[in-house]
């Protein structure tokens, strides 16, 4: 297996020079046909595989250097590119590959998997926690699992009486075996302590409490005779000082506004325009305070116009 598979990911150097040398050299080596004894154990295909993980972070030049290599050595070497965005792979490369699209997991499967993990780890949770997890993780199962684990660890105060650990200090081999026991201890303790709540999941995921968002929206609503500025600026200042991420503010405000039936379609489209602009600016690294303030004030303006 080792002589037949080369894996490179974004943490490796993958400039054009590496593609020209390392990848090409690896691709060039012919594979020996598997001996009959080996192939009787496991059927071994007559080619090598190069896995390029996170291929969308490769430079254009490096990608174009791959083109010829892929064709020339196609008899003995197959390439496997993994990426988030197929659009970042240059066309000539994409057309040389057969594509497999991995859709985000649907909720049913994600739910089943989360429940299974929770069961195996003896994690207890309230009703609705799994749904909350799926909602905050937006189809990202790893995120959901990380949250689940963190919730289990963080929000249930695990008391740690670990005299065993002290005995084994300095004895590396024993510690290895000990780890499993500890995990069991943890889960037993977790069993005794309280269940994971929906709130704890939201706190871990960094979801802003609905109240905060609601009050900000309320401040944006048109008021007769007086300006919305002082109230909005006060609320925004608090949001920033509380350390909520601006991206989350934008997302949650957006979700609230888009599904608000009172707002007319025209207003909505104007508001969405503002959202897209602010989002772009945030990604470019603008100051969060100013951007949220701007966002809120402009929404307020749109709402006032009617």
């Amino acid at each position, binding site marked *: 297996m080792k002589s037949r598979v080369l894996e490179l990911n*974004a*943490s490796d*150097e993958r*400039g054009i020079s590496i593609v020209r040398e390392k990848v090409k050299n690896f691709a060039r080596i012919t594979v020996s046909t598997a001996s009959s004894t080996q192939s009787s154990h496991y059927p071994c295909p007559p080619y090598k595989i190069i896995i390029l993980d*996170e291929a969308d972070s490769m430079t254009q030049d490096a990608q174009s250097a791959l083109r010829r290599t892929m064709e020339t050595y196609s008899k003995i070497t197959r390439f496997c590119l993994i990426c988030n965005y197929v659009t970042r792979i240059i066309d000539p490369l994409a057309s040389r590959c057969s594509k497999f699209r991995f859709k985000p997991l649907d909720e049913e499967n994600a739910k089943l998997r989360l429940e299974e993990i929770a069961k195996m780890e003896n994690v207890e949770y309230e009703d609705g926690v799994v749904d909350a997890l799926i909602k905050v993780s937006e189809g990202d199962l790893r995120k959901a699992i990380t949250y689940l684990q963190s919730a289990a660890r963080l929000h249930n105060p695990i008391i740690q009486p670990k005299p065993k650990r002290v005995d084994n200090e300095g004895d590396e081999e024993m510690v290895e075996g000990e780890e499993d026991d500890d995990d069991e201890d943890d889960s037993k303790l977790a069993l005794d302590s309280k269940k994971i709540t929906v709130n704890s999941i939201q706190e871990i995921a960094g979801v802003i409490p609905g109240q905060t968002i609601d009050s900000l929206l309320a401040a944006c609503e048109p008021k007769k005779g007086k300006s919305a500025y002082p109230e909005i600026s006060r609320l925004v200042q608090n949001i920033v000082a509380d*350390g*909520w991420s601006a991206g989350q503010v934008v997302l949650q405000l957006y979700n609230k506004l888009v599904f608000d039936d009172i707002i007319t379609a025209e207003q909505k489209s104007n508001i969405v325009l503002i959202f897209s602009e602010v989002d772009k600016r945030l990604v470019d690294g603008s100051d969060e*305070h*100013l951007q949220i303030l701007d966002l809120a004030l402009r929404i307020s303006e749109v709402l006032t116009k009617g």
Partner: protein
Amino acid sequence: MLLVDKHRPRKLEALHYHQDLSARLKALANSGDFPHLLVYGPSGAGKKTRIVATLRELYGPGVEKIKIDSRVFMTTTNRKIEFNIVASVYHIEITPSDVGNHDRVIIQSLLKEIGQTQQVDIAAKQKFKVVVINEADHLTRDAQAALRRTMEKYSPNLRLILIANSTANIIAPIKSRTLLIRVAAPTIDEMVGVLKHVAELERFEFSNKLAERVAEESGRNLRRALLMFEALYAQNEVVKDNTPIPPPDYETLVGQIADELLADHSPARILLVRAKFYDLLTHCIPATVILKLLTFRLVAKIDDVLKADVIKWAAFYEHRIHLGSKVIFHLEAFVAKFLRILESYLIGMEF
């Protein structure tokens, strides 16, 4: 020694606010299964203090013995870059944004090197080493992409703690691999409590009113509040409730700029103001800070109708500052725009 450093809490228990957060960190550190962390919050909220305390909880007092290393890395184009590393036996602290666009090289080579070696000290409490990455939100996309696999592949030997002001610039794959920890700025009451504690230790005469004012003035930034507090006691022999709090020099200057702009709306004024901007910039005050301060100063003094508009343009030019190369252009553009808005409003009034 500054009060900020002198009275920095060293243990999780000694932290004054966000008790539940401290308790959670403590539980995590003791659980033997420590995840990667992404700690975010505004500056002066106590992110770093909390991290250092957590490290101490993980490894004991040994983490406080730190040394500074200077390492040389080679980029792909064979350029040498020097990079400073703060390290103890158990952890390493880096600020990759120091080297700007070359941070990817650092992440690739340094983290791998650390990840491939095991803990040197066998008696250490944890089997993994911790790498603290400061200013993670300033990491380039490439560097963040390089982190992804490293985080998974070397997880037996390596835990990452990323410190950032905001999570907006951190790519989703990193966010989903880390436990997000939000450190909110302390409330005014909590800050007063901390100031009181420090005052007691330093035998300052303490007054609640003054502490409240300091806390308000600092914009919920504890580090700043402590520095202001210290300055107050250093400058005045007797501190009373109504002793004026001296603002930093640059704030005074920005205040002056704002006043000058409001006094006279002529192009000649822009020229005058430019000199002041240059003055601020040469003293290494970030353009964003200048623009923000100026905006809030101006907004406080103009009519309510204009406020939304001014903020809109401030946000616009602040964005430009990040995209462009010469910040002075954008600062001046903002000033010109502001004067235009103000002037057209005033003329509109007269008609």
